């Protein structure tokens, strides 16, 4: 399953290809042209759609923050199964999502040829670990947003609030970018890396804080 990485033979750089077309070999050589600007590779690279996706993501992030600030925090939101213990369950869900996030990081890097992992399983695993992570994170985010709101009573809460909004925007941005194959080659690693970094920061400013504050409780 593993082999020496080769830049020229790296699999498809866009991570979910259409089902049934696992890889399009030779489409890109990311090692050869790092930080490519628009219009320097053989298939025309276009930055415009990327900027549009980023703009939409920014609007989502700002809109989320404004809602979180204007909406009066209720202190309570819908209980999914097991959500009775509130913060603790959110903490564990976020931790679970972080686990899927690490799977995302590893498979994402492998897809881009940065670590020596290959196989037809990479793309489905990357796609489905991402979908599961999002499905897990969304109830947590909805609870944060509805029950707690955008808060600034401490640096931790402010950082978490800002990054939480940013995360939603970055996710929307990445999904939009994934629909196209003509983005500059640095875009996906950057957006994916940002998403993972923000997820880690969100985990640190909430779940880790919770574990330190309350202990490793369920």
């Amino acid at each position: 399953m593993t082999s020496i990485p080769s830049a020229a033979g790296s699999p498809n750089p866009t991570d979910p290809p259409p089902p049934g077309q696992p890889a399009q070999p030779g489409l890109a050589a990311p090692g050869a042209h790092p930080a490519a600007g628009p219009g320097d590779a053989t298939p025309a690279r276009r930055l415009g759609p990327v900027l549009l996706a980023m703009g939409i993501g920014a609007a989502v992030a700002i809109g989320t923050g404004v809602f979180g600030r204007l909406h009066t925090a209720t202190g309570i939101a819908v209980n999914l199964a097991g959500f009775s213990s509130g913060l603790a369950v959110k903490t564990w869900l976020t931790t679970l999502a972080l686990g899927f996030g690490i799977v995302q990081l590893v498979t994402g890097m492998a897809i881009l040829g940065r670590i020596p992992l290959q196989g037809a399983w990479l793309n489905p695993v990357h796609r489905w670990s991402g979908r599961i992570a999002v499905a897990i994170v969304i109830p947590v985010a909805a609870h944060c947003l509805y029950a707690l709101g955008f808060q600034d009573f401490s640096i931790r809460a402010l950082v978490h609030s800002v990054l939480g909004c940013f995360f939603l925007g970055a996710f929307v941005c990445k999904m939009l970018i994934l629909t196209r194959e003509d983005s500059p080659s640095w875009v996906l690693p950057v957006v994916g890396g940002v998403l993972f970094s923000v997820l880690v920061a969100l985990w640190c400013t909430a779940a880790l804080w919770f574990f330190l504050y309350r202990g490793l409780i369920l």
Partner: protein
Amino acid sequence: MRHLSPLVTLAAAVLWFAALLTTDFVAHPAHPAAAPSAEPAGQPASATPSASLSSTYPSASPSGSGSPTPRVSISPKRSDEELPTKAVYVGRTQDGSLAVAIAVLGDRAVAYVCDGRTREAWLRGSAGHGQVSVGSRTGWVIRAGLHDNRLRGTLQVSERTSRFDVGQAKPPAGLYRSRTARAGIGWIVLPNGSQVGLATTSDGTTSAAPRLNPAQRAAVLNGAPVSAEPVDGNTDV
């Protein structure tokens, strides 16, 4: 050139998010019982902190906005009426500066008095023969008697005596509290839905209590959810 599966993922995520938020809006509205329009005429509109949207923590209602008790209070005297086995009476002092809640359970009584800004006291004592007599560790004393199903009486704080005439509360009106290692909070929910309360955190800071959702008995203090419990006459305060 275009892949649709990320859009499907995005749409599913948005729907999932929207479904959760919609359910929240339906199941846990932000202002369950205290919509300003629901206030009976004659109640001070400023008593409801409906303008709390922009503030981080909706504060309890400000005091001094008028007394909702038009009756002339009388000194407590021997009452012919018997107290209900279990009841909570809430209202304001005659000068409107303090909210008063008195919970009776059998022969026990607990009271909470609060101005929503800095002053509060928990009082405990006895009930019987239509009379309530409670006191706090800090020397506040309430004596009240039942007349026409209302508790009328006096609150004594050092040399000062305030009169009150408070009616029986129907939920969600009543007396609530929250006690955790981090903070103690008391809330008086008045019949018009407005709230008066104080939160005292473990470091000794006192501030207006965050808005209580009486239906869910939940509030958010400094970003963390806290749960509240209704106080009865036998609660250990």
